[in-house]
């Protein structure tokens, strides 16, 4: 076999590299096309955000800005509404991340290493909670929270912190799943060695698992943050007053004064609102992708 292969390879070497080169050029070409397609909306948002209302209304040349202005940015950053939205989003997202990690990591640890009655079903089943999407749950959740508000007086509607209760349902299953994948791939010898050395389970978790699975944890954190930042349906249903809104719901409803459009400002707001996930992604891209694909290759 190897003799044949060695004989075959020199004969084919020239054509392989020519084929490879052709494949590479075609790939670049198509990649450029797709990048153009993928990046058109964000670029358009950027262009629009630099235009004045007058220039937009004129509609002379939508793909370039002739009299760029940073007015939209300044007015937004100074707008109380926008500041509120941003702060609310930040508070909700960060809190959700913390809550998610506090729930997911111990659970993943337990499900990947220990056994209790039902643990294997739970490990497989945690992912199945996604079969019950938020668009099925928003109505009963709304009714349940309304009922609790009515009977206990604790206002569970129209407050941004209500979202901290609900968002973990979106983030915990996936994060747990990622973590299980990571934890399961840590060799058992490591923790058994630690146990023999007299370490307790908590120490095993904090001294061994978390450091080794750090990439996975970072990926899960990024995922949880991005999902919390971006959710639209739950805030739409649960928050009404302008000072309780988070960015997605706030930008779409309150910043657009329907009848009276301010599209430059809306695009600016959308761009600014997309900044935190984008920035995190730009700096931690590798972790993000590694975490997502952990399931692909390990699961």
């Amino acid at each position: 076999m190897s003799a044949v292969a060695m004989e075959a390879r020199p004969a084919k070497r020239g054509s392989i590299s020519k084929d490879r080169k052709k494949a590479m050029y075609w790939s670049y070409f198509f990649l450029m096309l797709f990048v153009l397609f993928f990046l058109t909306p964000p670029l358009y948002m950027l262009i629009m955000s630099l235009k004045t209302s007058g220039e937009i209304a004129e509609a002379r040349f939508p793909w370039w800005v002739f009299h760029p202005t940073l007015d939209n940015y300044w007015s937004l950053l100074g707008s109380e509404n926008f500041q509120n939205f941003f702060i609310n989003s930040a508070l909700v997202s960060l809190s959700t991340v913390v809550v998610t990690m506090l729930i997911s990591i111990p659970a993943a640890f337990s499900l990947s290493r220990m056994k209790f009655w039902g643990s294997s079903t739970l490990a497989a089943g945690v992912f199945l909670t996604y079969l019950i999407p938020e668009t099925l749950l928003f109505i009963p959740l709304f009714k349940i929270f309304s009922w609790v508000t009515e009977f206990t007086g604790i206002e569970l509607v129209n407050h941004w912190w209500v979202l901290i209760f609900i968002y973990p349902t979106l983030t915990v299953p996936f994060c747990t799943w990622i973590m299980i994948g990571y934890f399961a791939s840590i060799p058992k010898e490591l923790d058994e060695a630690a146990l023999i050395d007299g370490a307790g389970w908590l120490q095993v978790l904090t001294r061994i698992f978390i450091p080794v699975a750090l990439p996975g944890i970072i990926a899960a954190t990024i995922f949880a943050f991005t999902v919390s930042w971006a959710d639209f349906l739950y805030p739409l249903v649960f928050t009404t007053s302008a000072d309780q809104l988070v960015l997605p719901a706030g930008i779409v409803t309150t910043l657009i004064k329907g009848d009276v459009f301010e599209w430059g400002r809306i695009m600016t707001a959308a761009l600014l609102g997309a900044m935190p996930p984008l920035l995190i992604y730009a700096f931690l891209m590798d972790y993000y992708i590694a975490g997502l694909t952990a399931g692909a290759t390990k699961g």
Partner: protein
Amino acid sequence: MALAIPHQRVAKRGGLRRLARRKSTVAFALALPLIILIASLVVYPALYSLHLATLNKSMEHFVGLGNFEFLFKRDLFWMVVKQSCIFAISAVIFKALTGFVLAHFVHNIPTKKQRKWRGMLLIPWVIPPAMSTLAWFWLFDPSYSAFNWILNRFHLDNVNWLGEPGWARFSVILVNVWYGAPFFLIMYLAALKSVPEQLYEAAAIDGANWWQKIWYVTLPMMRNIISITVLFSLIVTFANFDIVRILTAGGPIDQTHIFATWAFKLGIEGNDIPLGACVSLFMFPILGVAAWFILRDISVRGNEA
């Protein structure tokens, strides 16, 4: 040595057994928050919505399956079912195809450059969908569409992106594919990298062309990941709300309504919570069937392995 090992083993076994008994309570305690979260905020509301679906509009009387009867008689309901299925299935197919094709392209270029391209291509998935959909909304706007502006430059007619049922459906699917394809790209790229190079070389020696390589080497190796991503995406796409709500709010003439947006319109806007719950619930059987088929596929192969 020979004496030492049995001692060790005995010590280990005894210690582990003690540990094992403590293990399950600790394990349970660690997993408890997860269990509570899912039980109270996922399972309980889901069951509660079953109960809600059996009430009348003012939620004062029990009407059993009356709401479902009411829905099944309406054309609009079946139209929403059809639309949701078409939307979800076609969007997922296109997303998977696009991701698959793109993964190959990225795989073909030198590894050093891949990071940059991959980075740019993932951006649609990172931007919150509510915000990027706003950009698309403006790009499709009846009066100010930048796309129509380009078409006009080529002396082509304006396209009624959001106002005509056919185009509206296309636009909604397009935005969904734009948003979701990067996810598939990333997953498939990782899976592609894990396919051993020797398999391709062996196939090449056997005279396989690029198409046969994909069919006989790539796809079988990636079956698992393809199944999982397709299932995940089917669920998420089927339950999509943001894109349709912001682009068309279900119009024109309800031709782009999917379960989520219609449930919102009936349940929250129309003040008929039980009916909205019914519509939402109808998603579940369809999703369950899809999940069963795909998961069965995975576990069968799991058993084979």
